[in-house]
């Protein structure tokens, strides 16, 4: 771009792993084009090693993030919304280029993404009240069920909705205390890396969200088969790939969220959170 004759300084889009922005260790990249077919950038093409590194980073972040207070997690999600709002114009530009929508429509999609984060931020200290219970057992026992995060979740982001869809699959996973490795939309990965810049400056601890760009059909099965991943959201998988991934996921009994028809503009269902929540029940005798 050369308004007033100046050559623009372009951004290099890299991966987001453990709070840092490395290039793929493989040195590979792929060309990303706009909806009209114009060249936008070379995105990193993540390798299996990058996927493994991302899982290691997510696992390392899990104890701290899952032990953070729900209030704190809610504050941080709200902070992400604030930072996203502040970069509204930049995201609207990227969404318009990626999806070929009007500037006005792109702005609305960014607004919806901000609002979605705010919606989920409020869930952090309420989902436990819905999913937990003091159980009236037939005996002198204190018996309490609480919701806990499942662990490291692989998230295959939807191909459409490079920002709103992406935010809609990440927020429900992390708000409850999980950490994640996200495979961004292969077609339109650039907003995911710009979102990573937002995440990196929102007090979100390093490794809670890790973003990989590259071929979904290559990356998703690696994560589905990874033995240190506890759950997988297959939203962005076409049917054949979803089948492959669900089979691979059986090896260590991952929790699986299957792809389903979903409008990103509608109010979300709770299963994006509840699929990756465990119920822990604690018993203790009552006595003097």
């Amino acid at each position, binding site marked *: 771009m050369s308004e007033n004759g100046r050559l623009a300084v372009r951004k290099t889009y890299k991966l987001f792993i453990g709070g840092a922005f490395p290039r793929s260790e493989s040195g590979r990249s792929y060309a990303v084009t706009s909806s009209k077919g114009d060249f936008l950038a070379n995105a990193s093409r993540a390798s299996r090693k990058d996927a493994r590194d991302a899982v290691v980073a997510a696992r390392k972040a899990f104890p701290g993030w899952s032990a953070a207070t729900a209030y704190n997690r809610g504050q941080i999600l709200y902070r992400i919304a604030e930072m996203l709002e502040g970069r509204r114009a930049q995201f609207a530009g990227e969404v318009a280029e990626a999806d070929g929508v009007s500037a006005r429509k792109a702005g609305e999609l960014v607004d919806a993404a901000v609002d979605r984060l705010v919606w989920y931020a409020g869930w952090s200290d309420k989902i436990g009240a819905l999913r937990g219970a003091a159980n009236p057992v037939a005996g002198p026992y204190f018996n309490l069920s609480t919701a806990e995060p499942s662990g490291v979740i692989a998230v295959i982001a939807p191909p459409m909705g490079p920002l709103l869809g992406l935010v809609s699959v990440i927020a429900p996973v992390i708000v409850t205390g999980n950490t994640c490795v996200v495979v961004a939309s292969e077609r339109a990965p650039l907003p995911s890396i710009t979102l990573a810049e937002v995440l990196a400056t929102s007090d979100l601890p390093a490794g809670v969200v890790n973003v990989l760009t590259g071929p979904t059909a290559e990356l998703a099965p690696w994560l589905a088969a990874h033995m240190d991943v506890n759950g997988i959201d297959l939203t962005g998988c076409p049917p054949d790939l979803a089948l492959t991934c669900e089979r691979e996921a059986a090896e260590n009994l991952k929790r699986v969220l299957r792809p389903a028809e979903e409008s990103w503009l509608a109010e979300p269902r709770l299963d994006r959170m509840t699929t990756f929540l465990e*119920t822990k*029940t604690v018993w*203790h005798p009552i006595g003097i």
Partner: protein
Amino acid sequence: MRFEYAPAPESRDVVDIKPSYGLFVNGEFTEGGGTPFKSVNPADETVLAEIACADEADVDRAVQAARKAFETWSALPGSERAKYLFRIARIVQERARELAVLESLDNGKPIRESRDVDLPLVAAHFFYYAGWADKLKHAGFGPDPRPLGVAGQIIPWNFPLLMLAWKIAPALACGNTVVLKPAETTPLTALAFAEICVQAGLPAGVVNIVTGAGATGAAVAGHADVNKVAFTGSTEVGRLIARSVAGTGKKLTLELGGKAANIVFEDAAIDQAVEGIVTGIFFNQGHVCCAGSRLLVQESIQEELLGALKRRLATLRLGDPLDKNTDIGAINSAEQLARIRTLADAGEQEGADRWSPSCPLPDKGFWFPPTLFTGVAQSHRIAREEIFGPVLSVLTFRTPAEAVEKANNTPYGLSAGVWTEKGSRILWLADKLRAGVVWANTFNRFDPASPFGGYKESGYGREGGRHGLEAYLDV
């Protein structure tokens, strides 16, 4: 110290076992297409009855019957479904002694446990879910949560009738119909339950019982017209089922294996902890997925605790499951006994120290003495693999952090135990332990109101409580 006990056998006269049993499909007992098999009393190896084996065509008949019954059953007002379940609960109570004796004969578990644990919990489970049937709109799953359809359910041999209750009660309360396959070594109480369904006047096809082995189970889980699969059993089979269900859209819940840590701190009430350790691993011969099979004892009290534990183990009475004084009954099958022996031998070969109290074993039947391994390393098979028998592996720790590290060092995550008098430490550990049930200063407690199920490779979904409804509703 040895106590002398006179024999105190429970009478077998309350049960009337037929020479052979058919499948229960569409409200009637029918022949099976497979080769019939025998159910054996594991305490003396006598044949109890010949059981029909369901082949794929039989399973298909059962699923069709369940599908047809689903139309009317799911359309019944919840209050009517509730009354059927209350009826079933009452009949279970009325026939409790008969069912307890039958369970002990078929499974080998002590009558004290089948009578005082299994049967009361079976009745309680039906009572509990009966009450939900007409209150589902208040359960937090939306204003009108719908059932899934036909549930294919596969249950294990360790708590045959109780696992049936855990599966059937919530399924029916939510408006589903079921095809249930009991374990091949313990089909008798499920077939008695079929009679109970008839006595209760339950509409034909709402409950179907298909007996058989793994192939029958695979046919149930794999049937195209089954909407929901629920399985309790080994992690190995759970994986196969998860794999087979992939891509079908069937809802799946799995309650699989475990290798629970039972953690004892130096400030614990030792006598209570010893009782909890015994309950944790020797209840039901250790045939319990949530058994406390790894004892983690704080190093400073290792000698004292093990001394007390060994004294206590010496008083356990192993023998006739129908004797009211028996603590440890028979191992359920020759196959399971072989597995326990293999793993116990591996414990010795890998360098752990094996100890059992002096414990004469009956000549006939399948028996294994209560066994303790000390000097166990985390890498030993007996510390990693589920033995599913009366074998306890003892490890030690120094700090609470080390206890958590060791307790969580397993792909399983079903249950855990904590013994300490310090409240804040209990809650700290309860937070850190990656397990679905944490028993603090108690162990192996169950209640229909209390959700049960695992983390990680112990499976997913919960049984019991409001949580248990979710597995059988389209939510």
